[in-house]
């Protein structure tokens, strides 16, 4: 009873709202909408389907956000059969046609999350309530991704997380409507351990500086677990606020702590700042406990390596993907992205692009945008040809399992984008874990009415 009532109200609202939007010309390509009964939130009824890309354009992760947005736009182009098709030809098993999705042209709207949970949810609600999107994607901060994922679960709209690396996203805060292609902190720990052991030995004392939120906490936890397995000791970690800018007050104590490795659980501008400042303080030139002082950055990207410049040289980290990978899919994507934007894509761009394709493909296979059916298609889906080798979307927690790259800052970059050396690959088997270790519940997949 209430449902149908609400449905009617919403429709009239959308109709009158739409007329107005069109009148001022700001309509983000939502052109026509029928008045058929909706069985689920934002069922597309015209000849377009709208996706919402919710990324940080301001705040400490703005670079990643901007790159994600580029990738989203590229993905939409390719889905609509424009451009060179990118990874559409390499992707298997694909039912994508390059004719839009389920015969509808793909449109999109964008929004700025400001790297804040409230603003991100506001932005996502605008996309869902006003612009009628059937899927929201985006990320760059796990805190924000988790907040938006929660909202999407409530409103019955699928959330295809882009860059979010916290264990919680598909761990204790996982949701039936949320899916993550990106790897996580736990996998970083497992992947980077052997390389750190080989390079720095088994007798080290690590000092952690950690971004004070879900991603930092879980990265710290995973890094401690994996380095202590090597035999390293850990000094009580220090938490730093997100977007701190100046980290000198946190770096000075490192020198006298007796630690000989600094692990920076920072991302985006935070990592660029803290790493640059740590290097300026001469940490990398110090000898402590008779050993060369080292710095480790668990999660690195090209964009951060670019920001940190020479400070990045020789630093170990992990990545979800790198544009210099030589498989056909990565090459195709890099070529397509480079042609449009004049620069190689970052891992943030890659995961954003992949998630959009995966969603579109799942809708094609389901034959509908009805979320419970789309979710069924994604759960347990095994695919290849998107740059990471064979990959599984695990049904139990909606986490993708694939190889993880261990990278190191290049000593002598040959060009401004050639910044990371791919030194090792952790196999998909080695980074697979029992979903029960993080707890959490997916919740029901019943279709909501927004």
């Amino acid at each position, binding site marked *: 009873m209430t449902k149908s009532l609400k449905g009617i109200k919403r429709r009239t609202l959308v109709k009158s709202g739409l007329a107005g939007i069109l009148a001022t010309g700001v309509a983000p390509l939502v052109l026509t909408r029928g008045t058929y009964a909706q069985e689920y939130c934002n069922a597309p009824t015209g000849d377009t389907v709208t996706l919402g890309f919710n990324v940080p354009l301001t705040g400490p992760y703005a670079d990643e956000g901007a790159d994600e947005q580029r990738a989203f736009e590229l993905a939409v182009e390719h889905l609509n059969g424009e451009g060179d098709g990118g990874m559409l030809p390499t992707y298997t098993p694909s039912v994508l046609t390059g004719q839009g999705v389920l015969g509808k042209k793909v449109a999109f709207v964008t929004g700025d999350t400001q790297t804040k949970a409230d603003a991100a949810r506001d932005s996502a*609600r605008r996309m869902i309530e*006003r612009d009628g999107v059937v899927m929201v994607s985006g990320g760059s901060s796990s805190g924000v991704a988790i*907040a938006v994922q929660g909202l999407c679960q409530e409103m019955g709209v699928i959330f295809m997380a882009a860059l979010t690396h916290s264990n919680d996203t598909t761990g204790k805060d996982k949701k039936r409507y949320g899916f993550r292609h990106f790897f996580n902190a736990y996998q970083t720990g497992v992947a980077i351990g052997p390389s750190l052991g080989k390079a720095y030995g088994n007798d080290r004392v690590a000092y952690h500086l950690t971004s004070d939120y879900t991603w930092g906490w879980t990265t710290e936890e995973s890094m401690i677990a994996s380095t202590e397995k090597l035999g390293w000791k850990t000094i009580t970690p220090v938490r730093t606020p997100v977007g701190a800018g100046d980290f000198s007050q946190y770096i000075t104590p490192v020198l006298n702590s007796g630690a000989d490795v600094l692990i920076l659980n920072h991302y985006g501008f935070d990592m660029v700042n803290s790493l640059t400042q740590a290097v300026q303080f001469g940490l990398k030139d110090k000898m402590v406990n008779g050993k060369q002082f080292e710095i480790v950055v668990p999660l690195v990207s090209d964009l951060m390596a670019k920001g940190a410049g020479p400070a990045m040289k020789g630093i170990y980290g992990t990545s979800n993907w790198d544009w210099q990978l030589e498989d056909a899919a990565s090459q195709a994507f890099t070529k397509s992205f480079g042609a449009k934007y004049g620069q190689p894509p970052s891992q943030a761009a890659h995961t954003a692009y992949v998630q959009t394709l995966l969603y579109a493909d799942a809708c094609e296979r389901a034959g509908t945008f009805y979320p419970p059916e789309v979710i069924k298609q994604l759960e347990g889906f095994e695919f290849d040809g998107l740059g990471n080798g064979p990959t599984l979307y695990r049904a139990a927690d909606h986490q993708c399992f694939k190889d993880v790259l261990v990278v190191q800052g290049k000593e002598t970059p040959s060009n401004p984008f050639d910044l990371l050396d791919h030194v090792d690959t952790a196999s998909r088997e080695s980074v697979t874990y029992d979903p029960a270790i993080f707890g959490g519940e997916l919740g029901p997949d019943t279709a909501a009415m927004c």
Partner: protein
Amino acid sequence: MNATAKTLFSMSRRDLITLVIFALVVLAMPIWLSPLGAAYPGLMQKFAIYAIFALGFNILFGLTGYLSFGHAAFLGVGSYTAVWSFKLLSMDVIPAIIFAVILSGIFAVAIGYLSLRRTGIYFSILTLAFAQMSYNLAYSVLTPITNGETSLQLSLRDPRVLDLAFGPREPGLPSASLFGHTFSGLEAFYFCAVVLLLAFFIAQKIFSSPFGMMLRAIKSNQTRMNYAGFNTRSYAMTAFVISGMYAGLAGALLAITDPLAGAERMQWTASGEVVLMTILGGVGTLIGPVIGAWLIKYFENIFSAFNDTALTHFFGFVPDGLREVVVAISSKFVGEGWQLTLGLLFVLVVMFLPGGIMEGVRRIRGLFGSGRTPQTGAVSRPQAAE
């Protein structure tokens, strides 16, 4: 009894007309906001909620002149309290609102007691310090209560003792309800709108009461107030607590429309935002802060979502070659540049209309209606000679 009830609701003709017009404007939001692309429940709820926040803030800043830079703390307290009420007791909004208003009031008593020992910039700095302290507590110290940066959210395993005493646990996360009727979207907006009208009515009563005049007198000359026999600290304290409770109410409504409470809601930027709203709209006027709140929320939510595609569409009438230029220039002011536009607007208003948008309205009105009683400025509204 009858006489009490009469004074309780009695208001001047002018106030009554203002209230009726305001009610029409608020309730008709879904209609007049749609040409502006803002008629969706999520934003309209924010319009109503932040109007309440600004109204309350103006009772302190606009009337007494005490500029608090820490009001977001009360907003946050209200949100956390409401979410905890949802988690522990019931999804019903009434207990959530009551607890949120009471607890933020208690918080305001504590912070006000300490901050009101100073005036001027020292008062502002004290409130800023306390708010920043609350933010840090919420962000990293009291994480068992606040869940830190990840925000406090509902979970499938919440006790909700009252709800579960009357019915079984249903699958999925529950949503807010009023006497058993769950609501969201447009209904939630109308709920917030009704609460806003109530808050506006109370603000009107304060503005037109002797108490309101005392608050204005404190702003005007605190020494004279003391020597005229008034305990100005008590008056300022009362105004502080009332505005803290308004903020708590707004915080509760934020949690009702979206059951999530994050520490960033208490950050200094959020405190600064309500100062901007009030100054932009017109300090000390009843309507001004509401308009300021709407403008800022509009910029934040609509301008920030414009992208090049939308702009190209918007400038469709401009010839091809020129259009790219126009789009390239204007794109700097929308999307991630929305704060730039807002900043420019703010500078323009402060430079040319120091009394905010309401001063602009008065000036325009002055151009057309010269026969009106002369206005004596934003701060004082002398009683009309009968």
